[in-house]
């Protein structure tokens, strides 16, 4: 926001017209260094009132006179308001991150909904059932961008996802705070700790009740966590909409672990699971391609593999011939080097199915060795559907199912290659 706009916004509707007049006259004189933040509203307004009538009166005169009067006004203005622009910049920085009011967010949500309907009409689709995926698709179509950074591309999302959640005003009309722990400073965190302690007391009461009935056992029901981890500090901060220190976070995790260690803690399972994040199950090797049957009743399966920049597809037929064709050619012709042919043979040799299958491979990209590696991975994946789980595990352990992540490292500036530096000269 330019400084003149700042002053007009602050000064109010009556003065902004006057300031615009001032600006016009000022710009005529070619004066670019503009006055900045004004300390006292009343004083400045009074001065503006005194200065501007002078300018308005001079407005009826010729251009040259205007310039002179502008110069005069420059001096007058210089004397009346003299602030450094550096001071103004410092104040803005100290204010902290921009705070959005509830009305602003509400307005943004309304604009988003209207925009969504317009977009649906533009794309010729139903405005009622226009989902977020449709929006993304439409934006990508209407505003194609070649930028690599996905976050830099044009984006249209619900304002709740764009603007970070912020704390609304904490007290009501009679200025009584809403939350009972407001005066601690960290109300969400401490209310969470309070709740946590309450749950622990609950569990202990339950234990006492069972003990009185004689049904207590030390290995009583505990919570099954499964593949999950605790929320990270950032995720907890986002949940509570409050800043938490590392010490507080560690304390929270410590107490949660203690809660989990108590017998009969399954009564508070849902409370605990609220703070656990399910991990993605790493069952890549379970992605087995389906076993299909062609017209002659021969079972076959297909799979893909890549290595460096090569991509390959393999169709494995349960014929019993053991033939290998790569890109229409025989493997001997396509791979003259023994090493590459050995790579192709390895998965079948490992499982002992050398002569059983018939391979039809296609491969493109990369060099000799990388094509061989891509084919090996594709063959191993295709073989999975013909094997038992123990054999699959053996293949996984052997490393046949792991795609090789190594790619060519880029050259860096200031160096000869990726790692090689220029020759060091002493002088």
């Amino acid at each position, binding site marked *: 926001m330019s400084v003149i706009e700042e002053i007009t916004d602050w000064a109010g509707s009556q003065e902004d017209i006057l300031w615009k007049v001032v600006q016009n006259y000022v710009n005529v004189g070619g004066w670019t260094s503009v006055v900045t933040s004004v300390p006292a509203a009343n004083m400045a307004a009074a001065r503006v009132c005194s200065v501007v009538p002078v300018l308005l009166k001079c407005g009826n005169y010729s251009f040259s006179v205007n310039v002179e009067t502008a110069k005069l006004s420059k001096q007058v203005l210089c004397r009346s308001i003299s602030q450094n622009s550096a001071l103004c910049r410092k104040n803005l920085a100290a204010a902290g991150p921009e705070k959005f009011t509830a009305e602003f967010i509400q307005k943004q949500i309304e604009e988003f909904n209207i925009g969504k309907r317009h977009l649906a009409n533009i794309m010729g689709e139903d405005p009622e059932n226009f989902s977020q995926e449709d929006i993304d698709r439409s934006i990508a179509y209407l505003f194609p961008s070649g930028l690599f950074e996905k976050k830099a591309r044009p984006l249209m999302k619900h304002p709740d996802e764009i603007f970070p959640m912020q704390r609304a*005003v*904490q*007290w009501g009309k*009679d*200025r*009584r*705070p809403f939350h*009972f*722990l*407001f*005066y*601690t*400073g*960290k109300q969400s965190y*401490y209310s969470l700790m*309070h709740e946590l*302690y*309450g749950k622990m*007391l609950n569990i202990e009461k339950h234990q006492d009740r069972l003990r009185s009935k004689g049904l207590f056992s030390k290995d009583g029901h505990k919570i099954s966590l499964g593949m999950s981890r605790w929320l990270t500090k950032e995720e907890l901060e986002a949940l509570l909409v409050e800043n938490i220190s590392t010490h507080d976070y560690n304390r929270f995790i410590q107490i949660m672990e203690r809660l989990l260690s108590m017998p009969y803690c399954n009564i508070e399972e849902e409370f605990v699971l609220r703070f656990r994040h399910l991990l993605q199950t790493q069952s890549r090797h379970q992605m087995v391609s389906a076993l299909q049957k062609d017209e002659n009743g021969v079972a076959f399966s297909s799979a893909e593999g890549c290595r460096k920049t090569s991509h390959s597809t393999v169709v494995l037929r349960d014929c019993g011939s053991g033939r290998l064709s790569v890109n229409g050619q025989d493997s001997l012709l396509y791979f003259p080097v023994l090493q590459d042919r050995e790579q192709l043979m390895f998965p079948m040799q490992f499982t002992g199915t050398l002569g059983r299958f018939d391979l039809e491979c296609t491969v493109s990209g990369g060099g000799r060795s990388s094509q061989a590696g891509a084919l090996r991975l594709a063959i191993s994946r295709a073989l999975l559907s013909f094997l038992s789980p123990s054999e699959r595990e053996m293949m996984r352990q052997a490393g046949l199912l792991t795609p090789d992540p190594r790619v060519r490292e880029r050259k860096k500036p200031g160096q000869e290659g990726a790692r090689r530096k220029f020759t060091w000269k002493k002088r």
Partner: protein
Amino acid sequence: MRKLNFVCILTDFFCLLKTFGISLKCLATVMSNWKIRDLLSLGLLGLRHSRGVLTKYSSAGQTVSAAASVSSPQLQPNDAAEKILNLPLEKPDFFRVAELFSLKDLFDARVHLGHKKGCRHRLMEPYLYGCRLDQDIFDLDQTVEHLQRALNFTAHIAYRGGIILFVSRRRQFGHLVESTAKDCGEYAHTRYWQGGLLTNANIQYGPGVRLPDLIIFLSTLNNVFQQHVGVRDAAKMNIPTVGVVDSNCNPCLVTYPVPGNDDTPVAMELYCRLFKMTINRAKDKRRQVELLYGLNAPSPSNS
């Protein structure tokens, strides 16, 4: 008759103005915005039949557009609000807090047990009945008096809609204190006290925050056996305090000290129960009185 009245009124008026040092100009601007009845209610002129005079005067005065137009207070709600606020002040124990507990209750809750003789604070000696086997015993007669005074004060504050903050740094009773505060609808602070919570409130919480009107210390010491910072800060910010002072505490800065035990769970539960009951009672009374005055606006009823 009218002219004479006019002269008398005017002379009185000018005398009053001189005594209060109000200039005619600013009074004129003020009067141009105010209604006549309001001025009369302020007591500038005690005569009600001089309405005509005032209208003449105000029209003669300058009509400068005042910077802030004063909203006109009306007679009836003022009366009702004043009556609501003054009602509890008629009787000494309006909320009957003395009925909430007896000396026997305090004895059963072991409130009379203090710390050992070595931990005794010099200024707590007036509140002690004696010392048995090196352990200090509180004088429960004094405790009853002090507790009644403290509960009465809390009740009055709660009746007037004040913010009450429960403070205790004892980890054993933190949850209890927080639950008590939640049940009352008041506030609690049983955690680490950050330095400028009361003294630097505008920066800590945000501009325009309202500070507590009463702070209740259920234990005036912090975890290192030093006086809680809140006691000193409340005294600095002119916030009255109610505090349960044990025999090793300093009762100086606490406005309404309650000499008694602050270590036993039974005693703490008793205190929390008593404070909760008084605050709820006071709030219920307030709601009752507001309803009554809302229905019978001109005449007050006996509640």
